[in-house]
Each structure stands twice: as structure tokens, then as C-alpha cells.
């Protein structure tokens, strides 16, 4: 299925990627799948001739099917912590090997921290051996901002994280990965850039993941009552993955080494309004139960002005279109 519509003028902006070789760790995850989609589009429609290497512990049926059909994508089966040899011709790395699923963070906290810490170190060590390395995007997390009291989170915001809490497994490990990669930049001049993703919604999402928007969509499609456990006031924003993939490739080309970039939509929406939108779009007459079990009204929305101003990037798919497309997809897969 073709998700993209990239014009020739847009393609010129990322022209540096023509005939390049890109390696993605976490290649079978959400980010990996969307990098596959966009590179397949660029190669098939705009003759970019990119070679893509996907690193992951285990192959998936989905990836396997793609690899079998194509001669421009290659799977490297390896735990990122054990990554030793990669093609010496790789020029770009997107290091996305870590799950944001907090149920896994809770069950395997040491494994999660170790994969992020040792995995990042291994990727950076391997990158040291690449003669033509041009950019390494360290996919960190919007969670590294911790607790803040501002409405829009800009890249220079610094919040607090309780380092003595099981809730801090993922963000604290991601903070470490950022600082470690900056150490490599400082000592070895590696071209490292930090990317801090927020929330996404779209095809290839694991709908079983325990996030509010997933539950809302699943419940509405299955004619079940939509439950909001808190007061419905927390504000989130959701980026559609075609925008996410385009932003990442643009960052490979245009980002400045050592700089942090937010990756997400700045269009905030409360969970209550989100549930109402989903209910309307699915077109079902189900109740929305606001259970008021907590008073959380936190805002988790990025300020995207740096990305817009410096990298000339924008959101093409707004929340309404993102929901329409995601619901169409979810109805097919559920």
C-alpha cells in the first residue's frame, strides 16, 4: 500500500540521500516499518536508489515478506548490544532500538535499561569504524523532559525525573543515551543528533499497546463503551507516521550535529475531545465514561517551532485526517 505523495520539489530537499546507505536499529518496530515504507516509495517512484539495512533481534513476517521481494533492503539479525559488523558503506544511522511500551519497562526494567545503554554504546562504537558516516539520529524520547509546568515543551525545557522510581526506567535510560552520544560527538566528532519523539497514531501501530488512543479506537470499533480513567483533561498530540518518516529523513539531511529536535505534532487535544472525535468518526452510539479516577491534567505536547523554522518542516496530516486514516486501517486489521 502506498501511503506517501512526495513531490519532485520536496524530493530535491532530501536529494543528499540519493544512492546512500541507511541503517536502522529497531528495524522491525514502528519507526523501522515507516522508514521501510518511505524508502520503498522513494526508490520505486523517484529513483533514489537508497540501500536500507534493518537491524533487529528477530525478524517478523511483515519484514520478511518485504525483504524477499526487494533487492534494496536487507535484514541484519542481531541484538543491538552485540552489533559488530555492518557494511562499511553505511552513511546514515537511525538508532531506534527500544520499545516505548511501559508494560515492558515494568516487567523487564534491567533489560530495557541495558538495551538502551549498551545498545547505544555499541551503535556509536560501530559508527566509529564507518568512513563515510554523515549523520546518526539517536531516537530518544519526549519523556526525557520529565515533569514540567509549561504548556508546550521546547527542546531547551528541562524538567525533573525522580531517579529513584520504577517509572523512570525508560526516560532515565534515554537521558543516558543522549549524554553518551554527546560524549562520542565531543571525543570522536561523531555527527550525532538527538530526536525526541512524542505520540503517534497510524497504521503499523501495535493497537494492543496500553495507550489511551489505542483503547478508544478499539473500543469504538468493537461497539464497546469508551472508558476514560481520569478526568479527560490531559492534553496530548498525535503525529501521523507519514509526517514522522518524512521528518526523520529530512533530519538526516538538514539537522545540525549536537542539536536536539522534537518529533511530534503541536496540535494538542484533550483525551475527552479525542474520545468524542473517535466516537463520531467511527459512527457508533457508544457511551464515553469519564471515571474521574485521578486528577491528572498534564500536557504532553511539543513546541515544534525549532523544527519548523530551522528545518522547514510542517505537519501535513492533521489530527482529523490522521484519525480517519487510522480508523480505516484499524477496522481492517482488528
Amino acid at each position, binding site marked *: 500500500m502506498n501511503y506517501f505523495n512526495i513531490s519532485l520539489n520536496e524530493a530535491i530537499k532530501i536529494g543528499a540521500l540519493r544512492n546512500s546507505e541507511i541503517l536502522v536499529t529497531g528495524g522491525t518496530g514502528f519507526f523501522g516499518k515507516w522508514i521501510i515504507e518511505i524508502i520503498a516509495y522513494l526508490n520505486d517512484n523517484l529513483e533514489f536508489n537508497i540501500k536500507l539495512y534493518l537491524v533487529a533481534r528477530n525478524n517478523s513476517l511483515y519484514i520478511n515478506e518485504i525483504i524477499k521481494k526487494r533487492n534494496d533492503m536487507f535484514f541484519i539479525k542481531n541484538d543491538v548490544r552485540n552489533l559488530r559488523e555492518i557494511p562499511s558503506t553505511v552513511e546514515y544511522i537511525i538508532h531506534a532500538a527500544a520499545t516505548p511500551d511501559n*508494560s515492558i519497562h*515494568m516487567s523487564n526494567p534491567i533489560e530495557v535499561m541495558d538495551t538502551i545503554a549498551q545498545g547505544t554504546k555499541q551503535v556509536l562504537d560501530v559508527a566509529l569504524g564507518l568512513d563515510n558516516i554523515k549523520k546518526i539520529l539517536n531516537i530518544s524520547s519526549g519523556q526525557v523532559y520529565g515533569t514540567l509546568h509549561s504548556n508546550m515543551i521546547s527542546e531547551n525545557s528541562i524538567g525533573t525525573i525522580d531517579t529513584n522510581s520504577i517509572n523512570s526506567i525508560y526516560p532515565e535510560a534515554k537521558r543516558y543515551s543522549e549524554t553518551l552520544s554527546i560524549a562520542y560527538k565531543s571525543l570522536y566528532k561523531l555527527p550525532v543528533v538527538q530526536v525526541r519523539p512524542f505520540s503517534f497514531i497510524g497504521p503499523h501501530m501495535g493497537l494492543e499497546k496500553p495507550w489511551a488512543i489505542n483503547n478508544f479506537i478499539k473500543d469504538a470499533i468493537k461497539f464497546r463503551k469508551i472508558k476514560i480513567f481520569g478526568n479527560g483533561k490531559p492534553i496530548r498530540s498525535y503525529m501521523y507516521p507519514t509526517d514522522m518518516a518524512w521528518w526523520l529523513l529530512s533530519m538526516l539531511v538538514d539537522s545540525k550535529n549536537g542539536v536536539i529536535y522534537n518529533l511530534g505534532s503541536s496540535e494538542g487535544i484533550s483525551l475527552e475531545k479525542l474520545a468524542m472525535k473517535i466516537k463520531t468518526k467511527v459512527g457508533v452510539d457508544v457511551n464515553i465514561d469519564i471515571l474521574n*479516577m485521578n486528577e491528572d491534567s498534564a500536557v504532553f505536547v511539543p513546541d515544534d517551532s525549532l523544527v519548523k523554522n530551522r528545518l522547514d518542516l510542517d505537519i501535513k496530516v492533521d489530527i482529523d485526517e490522521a484519525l480517519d486514516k487510522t480508523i480505516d486501517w484499524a477496522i481492517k486489521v482488528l
Partner: protein
Amino acid sequence: MDKNKIIIYDVSLRDGSHAISHQLSIEQISKYAKAAEKAKLYAIEVGHGNGLGASSLLVGKSKLSDEIMLKTAKENLVNTKLGTHVIPGFATINNNINRAIDIGVDIFRVASHSTEADTTQRHISYIRDKGKEVYGLLMSAHMTNADILLEEAIKMQAYGAEAIVILDSAGSMLPHDVKKRVELLSKNLKVPVGFHGHNNLGLAVSNSIVALDSGAKILDASIKGFGAGAGNTQLEVLVGLLTKYNYETSIDLYGVLNLASLADKLLLKEAITISSLSIVSGLSKVFSGFSKHIQRISIKYDVDPRDVFFELGRQKVIAGQEDKIIDVAIKLSKAKGK
């Protein structure tokens, strides 16, 4: 959730199974369910004392299959929800949980020992994904300090649990133990906290009130205290008491009092009392459900069941380790030169 609105969750036909060696009959379940519906109870839990799939030689065979027990209850319920107890290991997703979903169980309460929440991940996530109400239960919460209990509760919350209930499985918690744990969890979790009391030291009802004052929104209780060992928080007493504290429960007072009268005839061969052995269970901090097994095995090996309880307490045994009872009885018997 309104400040004074709380959920009373009736565990009579599940925890009470321990008291009658899991021999619930169709008549008992159907009559009780009908009366519970009339009393406007929020939910009743039905099944083997150790939950779905637990019927076995190790912890006792049920008279009826899980399927028959749940179907019988469901046929007699309209507004009152049907709940079931799930311990991963006993209950599997394919053999037990899917069947229970098909029968129409509304609430699944997935339990683990209070330090082992990670064993519940697949079960909680699966049930939540199926759109059913799912709680996380931390058993033998008295054996774990408040900070660790909170970490385990946070795990269950992350897996998708919509409430966390802590169980005083041996009835050994003192009011300040309850306060410390419930207060910490209520302040730090995004989902409601519940408390499940046992009456080994005569504190089940008062500990439940302490839990409420400390932030709990769910209280487990059973009719006439019908439950393992010295029984649970006595439902009809609790409901009456809550009217004095101005808490809303939606339960009909006369209905629940009628339920208590029915239980006298229908469920209880003998009144649930605090036996000497139950006191020892509370003091030794060993799960009340061990009582009947300890009594039986102590007779066989001619040892004092109180000694068995205290030795098991020293070994910090937990539910599911019932096979340890024989080991301890043999050890004590040998020590006596038998």
C-alpha cells in the same frame, strides 16, 4: 470518582469456597446470585477459592467445574456484575480466560503474590485488550513493605489494570499497616485502590474503614464473613457501618440483610468464627486458606497444627506452596522422634 462513592465487591462465593472445601452447589450459587441481584450488589465473585483453573489435588477439587459455576451465576444476574479470580499458573488464557469471557464474566481480578506482579502481565493485558474490566490483586500484602508494594502496583497499572486491590491474606495486618500501604498507593496510582481483609485478629471490618479513610475506593467483603480461615470483612456489617459514615454504595441495606439470613441457611454449615488456629494463622502471617490443609495433615502426622503454622510463617510460605505443609509436618514429626 466521587469522593464518597465506593465499590463493595462481594467475594463470598469465591473466598467462601475455601470454607467449604470448594464444594459450592448449583443451588447455592443460583439462590445467592438472585438475592445478590435483589440487594443491588455491585459485583459477586464466583468460583474455586484459588480462582479459575485451580481445582486440583494440591489445593482441593471443586464440586462443580468453573464453567458450570460461572454460567449458573450469570444466568441469575442482570445488573450485578460477575467477577472471577485469576492466578496465572492456575488459570491460562486459552483454557480458562477465553471460556470465562464467552460465558459473560464482567470483572477479572488477576492476582499474584505481592512481590511478583510481573507474572500477571500477559493475563492483565489480554483481558484488557478484550474490553473486560480487569483489576490487579497483590496477595499477602502484609509480607511486603509499602514501597515495594507500590512498585508492584505500578507494574500492574502499566499492564492495564483498572484498579489495584491489596489482600491481607492472613488477616495479620494492624490498622497502621493498612493505613501506610493504602495511603501510599492511593497517592501514587492513577487507578483506584482496594482492600481485601481477613478477620483472623478480629480487625477485618475496622481495617476496611481504615483503608477507606486512607483513600481506598474498593472494599472486598463476604456475607457473614464467609471466607477462608476466620473469614473476610463481614459484608452486611460493613454495609450497615458505611451508612453511618455517609458513603454511597448503591447497595440496598434490607437486601443485604436478607442476603445474610439466606446465607445462614444456604451456605454456612457452621458459623464462621475466629478459631484458635485462625488466630495462629494471623499471628504467623500464613495465608488463611492453609487452615484446612494444615488441620488434615497435622492429624495424619500427629503434630500440633499451631507449630506447623508458626514454622510455615518462619519459612515465609505463600499461597500456592501448600505442598510445603507436608514437609513441615514431617520435619516436626521427626523432631518429636515419631
